[in-house]
């Protein structure tokens, strides 16, 4: 086992495709079948999956030493006030995580 940073990895086709469709939506370019709400107009009608029910919870992906990764999971309702407050306090002091999006949750 080793730590192996990866380089020159191509973005997966699905990510590129979705980004193009999203850009087309923003620019009003016809050709995307998606409505602004993200509801698929051409999706099979039997497909009732929604974003909410499909959203997976990666709380459990946080790796824990006991392998249980369960101390703070299942995820509780995000407390935006608390999180944004701490994030705000951190800004300007240190950037703890460049890809951090604490305030987003």
């Amino acid at each position, binding site marked *: 086992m080793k730590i192996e940073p990866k380089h020159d990895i191509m973005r997966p086709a699905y990510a590129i495709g979705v980004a193009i469709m999203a850009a087309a939506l923003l620019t009003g370019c016809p050709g995307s079948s998606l409505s602004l709400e993200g509801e698929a107009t051409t999706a099979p009608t039997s497909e009732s999956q929604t974003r909410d029910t499909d959203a997976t919870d990666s709380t459990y992906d946080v790796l824990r030493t006991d392998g249980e990764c369960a101390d703070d999971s299942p995820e509780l309702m995000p407390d935006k006030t608390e999180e944004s407050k*701490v994030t705000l*306090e951190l800004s300007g002091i240190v950037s703890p995580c460049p890809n951090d999006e604490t305030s987003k949750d």
Partner: protein
Amino acid sequence: MNLTLYLTENCNLRCSYCIREKCPNDMTSDTVRKSVDLAFSKGDTAGICFFGGEPLLKKDLICYALDLAKKRSEETGIPFSCKITTNGTLLDEEFLELAKKNNMQIGLSFDGLMQDDCRKTADGGPTSETLEKVSKMIIASGADAVVMCVVPPCSCGKLFGSVKYIHDLGFKHMICNPAYGSKVTWTDEALEVLKEQFDLITDYLKELYLKGDKFRFAPLHNKITENLSGINPSRYCHLGIRQLAVAYDGNLYPCTSFLYKSEWCLGNVSDGVDEKRRLEMTKLCFTPSPCKDCDLSKRCTNSCGCANIMNTGSPDMISPLQCEYERLVIERADRLGDELYKYDKDRFIKSFRRA
């Protein structure tokens, strides 16, 4: 604010990969009350996750906490959410009713076909039969439940079978993680077996998706969602920001991984949170040096300060196992994503993209 209540240090199981000491230390009702008060004292929501040990050994405390939280929520107008992480062996119809009544999500620790390899009773007995019965009871009740599966190296060849088994029992959501810590040793050979199992799972998930099945499997489905939606997979860590752990004695910690380590203590439910210390800890969540130029950096849990500190001793270092595991998962998630996207683009977006 959100709190994880470590209701008891006691557990009725002796899982071979568990590193937690089993002690007869339980939270008092006074500490539970103060914890509930603390949860409602800050923020725009209040949440409690019941944890242990085995939290169902202290059902009385759970009922007490729920009653108090309900009253506080009514008084303050602050919404309340709750969850439990349990080994399931003490679940009964009565508790399932309580869970449903309180919209409590049940995180069921269940390893599927691997269950009896590691998850044993205190006298070394098997638990799979009990878990199967409990699972059927949960499914029949309609309670909100997610299976949390730990994969030890000794049994990882059974992972694919376990995923099918959990699916066939009727669960709609399963999360798996490799066993970490001092009680397990992952070898390169075991990791190869795990990769093969993930290949099989990837094919299986594709098959289910094409049939319209809504079964969700973390981490593969998550990686797709996170990639499409620009979500940082480490966001749930953030030592001390997202939620705090309350030890049985009322002391506060950024995560249950740090319980009883005095240098990590963030106060007490009686005296409140040491905000200055809390802020210091949040700075320990950052991308470790070896990961900074990795293309997968933003799709990996590398900035989980908790995991890095526990596994390597430093917030600036990721463990080789975590790196290997993240790479194997992302690679397969992308294969799955590409195949599902090709099949039906609109449905794919609807299924995986978060607003």
